[in-house]
């Protein structure tokens, strides 16, 4: 396990990192600007990063704005998360072919190209850890997730500012990346130039770093990097008391507030689509016109759909009230029972991307009775 002193990489060094990763066969993925948002996509070089962009986020509100500098990581998280690569929105599971009076089943191939993520935030590292636990930590392992996850190279970025809906400090998941990365970067942009303080998390990270032009970090640079993270921690857009939230919600399954939020909730499922820990899937069966071929695929599902809890006779959760309650109590309460950890990492996506701006932190406050009603 690598545990060396931090070093400094300049912008050319970052380009070298991209080259080194590609040389090692990684598909490099990271943030870029598309459709007026920060999205995660294939990157060729740091030139594809959202240079000079930042974002403005609030309940139901997202705007990209120009920064007055050339920062490469001066925004926080957008509508997507890394789960779209690790826990893909659609996976072909198998296909079957009729042969004689039998059926031959073949598993569809797993992806073999290793992934390298550049720009993973601390809350997102935790989200990946959560999905690791859910999809690989139990008696049964999801082989599709594992095929993508194992061998993935993670380059974390410590946040220099918090978004308007961020609350990682409350969930104790950030803003500094402390574990689960191969390399972590803290972007420094001051009178001494544009550079990155680099920490290593794994031997693979150390080996990659060794291929890059770098120099030891000065004490002032280490202090500056710490100050960057402190600034982010001090500027959280939201906060939520999380130590008592599990019992609070389970004690209040019939609280009036669920009716109140049900009046606002459109049951659109956006929160489940943007949440980096949501893992629910459903399966679909397709068959050719002759019936000789059939195939099964898996796709993301949302607990906000009526079909989600359908059993013979009807949906278990037919009201919006019960579906919102399911989603929120799952994230904050029953996830602890099921997976021994919280299902919320405090990234704020569900707040930003809710079309009516429902704010999970505000809902918790209302149920606790210490917020505006």
């Amino acid at each position, binding site marked *: 396990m690598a545990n060396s002193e931090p070093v400094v990489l300049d912008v050319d060094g970052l380009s070298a990192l991209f080259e080194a990763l590609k040389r090692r066969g990684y598909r490099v993925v990271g943030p870029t600007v598309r459709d007026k948002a920060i999205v995660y996509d294939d990157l060729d070089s740091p030139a594809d990063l959202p240079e000079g962009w930042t974002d403005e986020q609030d309940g139901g509100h997202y705007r990209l704005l120009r920064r007055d500098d050339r920062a490469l990581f001066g925004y926080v998280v957008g509508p997507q998360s890394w789960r779209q690569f690790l826990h893909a929105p659609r996976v072909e599971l198998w296909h079957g072919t009729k042969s004689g009076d039998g059926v031959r089943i073949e598993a569809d191939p797993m992806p073999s190209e290793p992934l390298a993520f550049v720009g993973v935030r601390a809350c997102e590292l935790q989200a990946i850890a959560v999905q690791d636990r859910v999809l690989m930590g139990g*008696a049964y392992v999801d082989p599709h997730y594992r095929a993508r996850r194992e061998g993935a190279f993670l380059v974390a970025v410590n946040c220099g500012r918090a978004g308007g809906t961020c609350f990682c400090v409350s969930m104790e998941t950030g803003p500094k990346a402390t574990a689960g990365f191969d390399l972590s970067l803290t972007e420094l942009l001051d009178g001494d130039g544009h550079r990155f303080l680099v920490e290593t998390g794994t031997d693979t990270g150390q080996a990659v770093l060794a291929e890059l032009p770098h120099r030891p970090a000065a004490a002032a640079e280490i202090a500056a990097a710490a100050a960057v993270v402190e600034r982010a921690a001090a500027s959280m857009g939201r906060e939520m008391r999380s130590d008592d939230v599990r019992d609070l919600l389970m004690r209040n399954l019939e609280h009036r507030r669920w009716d109140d939020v049900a009046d606002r909730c459109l049951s659109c499922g956006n929160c489940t689509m943007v949440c980096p820990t949501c893992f629910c899937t459903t399966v679909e069966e397709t068959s050719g016109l002759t019936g000789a071929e059939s195939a099964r695929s898996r796709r993301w599902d949302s607990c906000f759909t009526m079909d989600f809890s359908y059993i013979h006779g009807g949906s278990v959760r037919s009201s919006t009230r019960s579906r919102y309650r399911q989603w929120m109590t799952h994230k904050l309460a029953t996830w602890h029972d099921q997976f021994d950890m919280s299902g919320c990492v405090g990234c704020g996506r569900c707040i930003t991307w809710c079309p009516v701006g429902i704010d999970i932190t505000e809902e918790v406050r209302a149920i606790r009775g210490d917020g505006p009603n």
Partner: protein
Amino acid sequence: MTIFDPMLPRIARTRRRRRDGPAVWTLDIEMAEGGPPAFAPGQFNMLTAFGVGEVPISVSGDPADPSRLVHTIRAVGPASTALARLGPGEVLGLRGPFGVGWPMEQAVGRDVVVIAGGLGLAPLRPALYRLLAERERYGSIVLLYGTRSPEEILFRRELESWRRRLDIDIEVTVDHAVGDWRGHVGVVTTLIPRSAFEPSSTVALVCGPEIMMRFAIASLQDAGVADDAIYLSMERNMKCAVGLCGHCQMGPVLVCRDGPVFRYDRIRSILGAREI
């Protein structure tokens, strides 16, 4: 490297199919390759009708008989209807068995009250086979079975043959009857106070529609059976059956992974909540 893929079905074939009530069919199946997987009473399999879909079905056969794997299916949706139509020799897919079954070992040395409602008798039948096969290990055995009408009584011939045994009490009741039905009419809970078992040393196994189970629990409690001696088999929308898809959540538990059989005191707090 080959990773075990729990989503990949094995090929099975129908050997025999018989009608067990309106729209209810029991299939004996065999694996295309290798023997049938061993199962514990109360466990379920995911059965695939190729080109249509996959559904969870409890094993309803004898756990001691490895020659055939038995499932009782009610044709309600596209997949269960397609499965129920499979004739001898036709192909289906099978994943499983999955889940936590009935507490056969915890019940040793105690009276066992089996309460079944409707199709809920199917997941309980393997437990009954086991109880009768190892009869001397258990105290009194009582089966209370309620269903809709005399025409809908499952496993009728088997129930009749068991009824002739002196070492099991079987009472069957229906919600309503026409014609020459001479048995009980009324809900299954009415049979509980009339049954001979020692509440303090009884284990109750309950399976049926959720409402019926809630009423049965209340009657068992009235009779003096402790909450930690009552076991229920829950139904939720299971898609993956291996705890990965999230569909079968019931508050803090995943029914496929932590159940389907639960000890009542462990789910008491959520069973009463609406739409959980």
